[in-house]
């Protein structure tokens, strides 16, 4: 029986982070993962992450995955793939299926970081081929380079539903609608706005009543429902689709912890059956830890911090790290974790209705219901940070109106134009005293794609708007297309006057359009003429 100081189950962001910290303290670490490739879901995350520098904000998920793998390798972590942990027994013995063989391993500490599984909802026709999990869509398009379908309806407006909808469009699929049973969009407004300005409608307080098709999905019917969850007659809408994507939450895969005899609690805020854990992830069994989604559904950034905390705690438990060093390093990580746990999307705020931002500004109801800011919202948010007498020359317009943990825009501007401050959930402010050079780094750094550079006086009667454009084909300078509003409505002709795609933008090309001056604060997206004709 092979022995290790630490066995980690699951090579996702939490497990790898834990293994790296522990191995760096001198522990002999084995990580088991049932998949053929390590990294968990990180390699499917092609969007830029939120947070601040210490959370690797504005770095795309798959790049973070590559860094973690390199660090694990350097630290001497042994990663076993296609290795399914089938059981945990007394005295930290685990049974692992590798190929056809069952093998016993023993450790002095164990960290369970098995992540979560997607939830499902049932409706008439839900078992038809073509009904898939949102994770399946991500796996197909981002790992295997294949479109999950041509026309897709997304159920679920949490961050997964929003992010995957955008990724579907990036992969060349059409998203016909985003549907959610909740009366409000669950994920970040900036994610919703990215989809809304492409013209995707949101149907809140709606759900799927039927998927059509005999051998596979050919269509879907949705309906609005009343407070008793009964469909309201006459509200049915039908869409011709070949794919229905379900993004209706995640549940911790905590079976191994239960099997090990850890005290479990049923906590809906953490996603279901989760172990009772200390702040470092230690369960009721000394030396057995849980990290990441398995101990409460969050996202990869906090999973990585949680993993590192458990790794350090495991090292200290066996004496590889002194108590004083442990306290010091855990305190730093706690600060990093706390900064992610602020604002209106904090784990403690789940399910609560937030009427005002931390700054006391009424939140946009349109953003929550339709996925975009109304013109009447702009006064409160956008113009507030843009009160300038000169009102001329290029300047950033930041449409970030919710307290989300993110601040790369602040570091991106070398001129000190943008201020978020110490609390990273604060809304960014624009310092009008600083001069914007139009470099566009803030646009590319904004993980929510909520920053635009506007020049009201680009030419007599015309304004220029620079926007992020992560789609193919990339527009060419000189071509003409359609300017779209925040809700994806065509506003008129837009001419491409500049396209920049610097390496520092990390695959977020900046496209500058010329529109009539009156559209300076309404045009927010560009649609090539070819796409308009196809529809």
């Amino acid at each position, binding site marked *: 029986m092979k022995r290790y100081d630490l066995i980690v189950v699951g090579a996702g962001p939490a497990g790898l982070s834990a293994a790296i910290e522990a191995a760096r303290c001198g522990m002999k670490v084995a990580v088991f993962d*049932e*998949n*053929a490739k390590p990294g968990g879901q990180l390699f499917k995350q*092609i969007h830029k992450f939120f947070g601040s520098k210490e959370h690797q904000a504005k770095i*795309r998920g798959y790049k973070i995955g590559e860094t973690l793998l390199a660090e694990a390798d350097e630290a001497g972590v042994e990663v076993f793939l296609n290795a399914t942990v089938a059981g945990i027994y007394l005295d930290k013995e685990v049974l692992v299926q590798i190929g056809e063989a069952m093998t016993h391993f023993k450790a002095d500490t164990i960290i369970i970081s098995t992540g979560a*599984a*997607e939830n499902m909802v049932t409706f008439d026709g839900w*078992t*038809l*081929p*073509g*009904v*898939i*999990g949102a*994770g*399946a869509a991500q*796996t*197909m*398009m*981002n790992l*295997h*380079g*294949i*479109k999950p379908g041509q026309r897709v309806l997304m159920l679920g407006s949490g961050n997964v539903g929003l992010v995957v909808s955008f990724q579907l469009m*990036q*992969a*060349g699929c059409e998203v016909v609608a985003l549907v959610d049973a909740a009366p409000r969009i669950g994920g970040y407004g900036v994610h919703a706005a990215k989809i809304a300005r492409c013209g995707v409608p949101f149907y809140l307080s709606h759900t799927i009543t039927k998927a059509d098709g*005999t*051998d*596979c999905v050919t269509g879907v019917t949705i309906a609005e429902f009343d407070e008793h969850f009964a469909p309201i007659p006459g509200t049915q809408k039908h869409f011709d689709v070949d794919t229905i994507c379900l993004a209706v939450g995640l549940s911790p895969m905590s079976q191994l912890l239960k099997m090990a005899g850890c005290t479990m609690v049923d906590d809906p805020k953490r996603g279901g059956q989760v172990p009772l854990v200390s702040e470092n992830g230690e369960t009721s069994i000394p030396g057995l830890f849980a990290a990441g989604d398995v101990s409460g559904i969050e996202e990869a950034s906090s999973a990585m911090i949680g993993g590192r905390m458990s790794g350090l705690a495991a090292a200290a438990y066996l004496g590889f790290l002194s108590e004083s060093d442990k306290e010091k390093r855990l305190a730093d990580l706690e600060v990093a974790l706390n900064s992610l746990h602020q604002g209106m999307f904090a784990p403690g705020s789940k399910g609560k209705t937030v009427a005002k931002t931390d700054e006391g500004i009424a939140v946009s109801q349109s953003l929550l219901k339709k996925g975009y800011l109304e013109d009447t919202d702009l006064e409160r948010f956008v113009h507030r940070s843009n009160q300038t007498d000169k009102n001329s020359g290029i300047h950033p317009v930041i449409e970030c109106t919710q307290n989300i943990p993110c601040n790369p825009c602040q570091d991106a501007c070398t001129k000190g134009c943008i201020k978020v401050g110490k609390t990273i959930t604060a809304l960014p402010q624009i310092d009008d005293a600083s001069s914007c050079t139009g470099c566009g780094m803030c646009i590319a750094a904004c993980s929510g794609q909520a920053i635009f550079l506007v020049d009201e006086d680009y030419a007599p009667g015309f304004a220029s708007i620079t926007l992020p454009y*992560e*789609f*193919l084909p*990339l527009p060419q300078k000189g071509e003409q297309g359609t300017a779209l509003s925040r809700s994806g409505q065509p506003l008129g002709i837009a001419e491409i006057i500049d396209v920049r795609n610097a390496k520092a933008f990390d*695959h977020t090309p900046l496209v500058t359009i010329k529109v009539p001056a009156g559209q300076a604060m309404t045009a927010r997206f560009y649609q090539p003429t070819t796409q308009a004709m196809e529809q």
Partner: protein
Amino acid sequence: MKRISDHPILGEPEKGQLVSFFMDGKPMEGFAGEPIAVALKAAGVMVHRYTHKAHEPRGIFCAIGRCTDCVMIVDGVPNIRTCITPLVSGMRVQTQDGVTALEVSE
């Protein structure tokens, strides 16, 4: 075309060698090493199996080897999770009917 030829973030997908395999006896092509389910999807195959009792169609659902909806008979072995089993040149893949192969008229 279901395959993504160029992606704004990921560029051109990295693929193995183009190989042929058999789906219910018919020759098809896919890339070696990609999941069997991906090669089938590219070829337009949606139904992977029919359920035992109700004879209902099933296809890809989770794509990460958890749900077992996409199982098929591969080289004579039933219940193979095609979403996580790499494609190999010459593989014989069959639609599963319950736990046996679906009878296909040639």
